[in-house]
């Protein structure tokens, strides 16, 4: 059988087009099958951009703060390292006014405000510098709800994010954290971290996915019940004009940490 040049080219071009079409349709089908298998928990709490308001007047004592911090650290198996302050791991911690809001120092400000501990956590910035500097995208901003997440599987421990974060919200595991976690208080439902990764507050993404509020917010409710006040930590959607957070922001005077840096922090303080 002999094929002339013209017929040969016809056969080749037709079969190329058919095979490309075939591959594309198979790939499309495969994607659809996979997409139908994995879905969001219908009970999950969702928002466009999660935010938190810390109302300082609702915390009466050091203990009240400590309860929120303990609730967070216990839920996430955060190690308690005391022998070297540089090795300390913190997701939530108290800070003085002058440290939290530098540039506003005033020598005549009363002792009460100078020593008042402010509750600090990751600000889950709108424009997070830690995400910009991460070489492996181990830390990333979730498009769905604005949480600045950590993917521990990808973190290579370069600590660029710690240099990038202007709030000191990140801690590095210089050693194995496990010996510093109280085995009796360990949360078996959440992983620990390993040597050589950076960690920080993740706004309880694992609790939100189950439809629960963050651990610190729950603890603040308990504290409020004890003190007979409304909760000191208010959690809600910044993009929803009817959310509790937005109502407070429109009525009360609030401050954020270092907004002049342009990071757009999502944690607000009422003093």
């Amino acid at each position: 059988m002999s094929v002339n040049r013209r017929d040969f080219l016809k056969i080749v071009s037709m079969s190329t087009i058919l095979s490309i079409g075939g591959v594309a349709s198979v790939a499309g089908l495969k994607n659809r099958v996979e997409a139908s298998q994995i879905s969001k928990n219908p009970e999950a709490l969702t928002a466009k951009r999660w935010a938190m308001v810390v109302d300082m007047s609702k915390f009466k004592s050091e203990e009240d703060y400590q309860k929120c911090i303990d609730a967070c650290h216990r839920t996430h198996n955060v190690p308690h390292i005391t022998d070297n302050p540089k090795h300390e791991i913190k997701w939530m911690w108290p800070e003085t006014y002058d440290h939290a809001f530098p540039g506003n120092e005033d020598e005549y400000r009363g002792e009460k405000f100078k020593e008042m501990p402010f509750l600090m956590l990751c600000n889950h910035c709108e424009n997070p510098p830690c995400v910009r500097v991460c070489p492996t995208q181990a830390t990333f901003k979730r498009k769905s709800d604005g949480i600045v997440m950590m993917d521990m599987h990808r973190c290579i421990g370069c600590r660029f994010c710690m240099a990038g974060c202007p709030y000191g919200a990140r801690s590095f595991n210089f050693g194995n954290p496990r010996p510093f976690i109280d085995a009796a208080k360990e949360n078996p439902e959440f992983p620990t971290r390993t040597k050589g990764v950076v960690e920080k507050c993740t706004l309880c993404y694992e609790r939100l996915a189950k439809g629960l509020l963050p651990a610190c917010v729950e603890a603040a409710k308990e504290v409020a019940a004890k003190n007979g006040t409304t909760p000191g930590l208010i959690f809600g959607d910044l993009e929803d004009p009817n959310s509790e957070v937005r109502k407070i922001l429109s009525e009360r005077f609030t401050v954020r940490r270092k907004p002049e840096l342009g990071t757009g922090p999502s944690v607000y303080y009422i003093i």
Partner: protein
Amino acid sequence: MYNGGKILIGLIIFVGLVTFPFLYGGVKATAKPDPKIDTSEILKMPEKDRKCVESKTYMKKEHMKMLNEWRDRVVRDGNTIYTNAEGKTFTMSLQNTCMKCHSNKSKFCDECHNYAAVKPYCWDCHIAPKEKKS
């Protein structure tokens, strides 16, 4: 043959070195891995519900790919529910779903991983279920 003696001695030493591991250790096969799925959690289930997320053959062959996929979808997308071919739903979690049934890590995971000399880093962070020492 020039330097015949030296070459022969060299050859004997070479053959000796190469065959040393076989002569020393013997040529016996390592015991075949025998992963166990008879944990009390699994035995408690009624016979007809005793099924993993996907079929046994699929899990044997693809569990590592599936776990990677689960990890990425949960951590990066925040999607936590997996629906299998039968329409049953599961929460995608190594620590809270897989290991709740397979609570025998040493007999279920390590048995084959040690045999195949693979060292997945799961347990550097994820907390393995507490096993009773028998």
